């Protein structure tokens, strides 16, 4: 199998090599092969049920590939031993679709938990960093609220604050704008770009929101449910105008043209 960094160029953030995803005998997607470069806002797109979110679960180790490999940089994530995998995941933050905040903890405690686990900061310092992260997503003053006490959009932002707790190099977003009103969705998009620019993070977004895709995506992969594989990869706006695949153009133009 080709080593993703073998040609001497800067190693990619993530490389997916000949990945096949399956539930038992049922193959969801096969032969996925793409590279996510450092500093990209990489969009995983496709119709409902094509396996976008499952691909994300494969990238962060919640599902195991049926075949193929996922690399972080030049190092295989798929074949890393559990301890090494945990270290690699420490450079990663995930914003889940529903926020997935721990419901028995306050927002500050949610952000503080990874800080307490993986840093040597004191209680007071942790509290300060947690407050800062919440302030970054516009939730200053909400430290002692429980997830159930705030709106869905705020839960998402709090989930983002938690995902950013350890200053990850790679941030994953699962359907960030799902369930948000257009304005909140737009704010979240702006926040994503801002994070990439200011922290230099690599960002991977699973979405089918066309507006987001064009507004923030710098690279993408298109998963097709019918043929069960990726049928396009590249800059979203270019795919919309110049893709050779009719399905991709139709998807990106909402079926017009």
């Amino acid at each position: 199998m080709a080593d993703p960094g073998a040609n001497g160029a800067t190693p990619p953030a993530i490389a997916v090599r000949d990945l096949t995803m399956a539930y038992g005998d049922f193959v969801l997607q096969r032969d996925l092969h793409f590279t996510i470069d450092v500093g990209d806002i990489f969009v995983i797109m496709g119709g409902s049920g094509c396996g976008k979110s499952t691909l994300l679960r494969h990238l962060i180790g919640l599902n195991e590939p049926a075949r193929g490999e996922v690399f972080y940089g030049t190092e295989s994530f798929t074949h890393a031993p559990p301890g090494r995998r945990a270290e690699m995941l420490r450079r990663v933050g995930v914003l889940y679709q529903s926020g997935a905040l721990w419901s028995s903890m306050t927002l500050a405690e949610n952000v503080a938990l990874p800080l307490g686990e993986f840093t040597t900061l004191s209680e007071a310092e942790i509290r300060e960093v947690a407050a800062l992260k919440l302030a970054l997503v516009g939730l200053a003053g909400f430290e002692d609220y429980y997830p159930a006490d705030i709106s869905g959009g705020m839960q998402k932002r709090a989930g983002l604050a938690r995902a950013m707790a350890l200053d990850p190099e790679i941030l994953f977003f699962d359907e960030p704008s799902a369930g948000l009103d257009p304005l909140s969705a737009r704010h979240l998009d702006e926040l994503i770009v801002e994070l990439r620019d200011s922290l230099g993070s690599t960002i991977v977004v699973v979405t089918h929101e066309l507006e987001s895709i064009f507004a923030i995506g710098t690279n993408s992969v298109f998963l097709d449910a019918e043929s069960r594989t990726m049928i396009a990869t590249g800059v979203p706006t270019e795919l919309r105008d110049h893709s050779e695949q009719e399905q991709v153009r139709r998807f990106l133009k909402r079926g017009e043209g």
Partner: protein
Amino acid sequence: MSVQSPTGELALTRLPGGTLVVRLAGAWRLDHGLPPLHELRRELREATPARIAFEGEGLTHWDSAVVAFLAGASSIARESGIPIDRSGLPEGLRRLLDLAEAVPEKDDAKDGSNIDDFVHRLGEKAIETHRLFRSDLQFLGHLALTVGRAFRGRARFRGSDLAYLIQQNGFEALPIVTLVTFLLGLILAFVGAIQLQTFGATIFVADLVGVAMVRDMGALITGIIMAGRSGAAFAAQLGSMKVTQEIDALETMSISSMDFLVLPRIAALFLMMPLLTLYGDAMGILGGAFVGVSMLDLSLVEYLFQTADAVSMSHVVGGVFKGAVYGALIAIAGCLRGVQCGRSSSAVGEAATAAVVTGIVAIIVACGVFAFAFYVLGI
């Protein structure tokens, strides 16, 4: 021929030239039933027409009843290769029919899972049982490793979580444990009194209640209460955390859900069940004493002294030990079913039910094993 409904009419007429005219008139509504498709089938069996023409000019009101009838009629006609003519139908009806037929029925959407014969179901059940058994073993193995880590002081959970769980599954269970064990003592006393009265030996009610509660019943009934109370709660908590991806969030942060969620729950019940058992024993003895004093003319002091004589330290220690084991079993069953929970809200309910069933079966099996072992050991 024609069919009348309370408000509508369906008429089938053959024209010279082989055309069958299906004419709908009046008002057809869902609450009066669909126009009868079998009439059309019967008509078609008699002689195959050259074409079928639908007419609906006389319809004063129509809804999905008519659309369903026409869609059914069209597909019958298509199967028999008879051309149809819908030009006599109202415009809205025609458009709805076109919409219903725009996407052809997907054959593979109806997969094999609704095959419903005995062998098929037996096979699926066997595979499912095997899969569940493997996942049970996996959980227990994982748990053993976690407990090992905990003894070396390397398991990570929050002390505040453990304190909260202890409060919830210890202190807050007191009222229900009080009620049930008191009543159980009372019931045992009545059962004993009926038998012992015939010998004039009612004072031995104290022995019966005391020994039964302390040796077995106190731990068992407290265990059953806690299986319903805490076991179900643990399964529902972990199950819903799985549904909302909270467990995924822990795992991707390399925080083991075994350490963080399962271990404190097992520790809490393991620590609290012996105390609750001891408390339940006392309440059961009080329940017996209540019957003894109020109905059997025994004095309270006499009853309690008789109990103290009958119950030995080894009974008490054995009972408390059983309580601790039941506590661990209930918590393990609850967490196991919670971790195995599927990703939907109905799965959470199933997990809670399964946790109670597993918990109660586990403690009753353990109770049987203890009864045998204690008998052999002469305790």
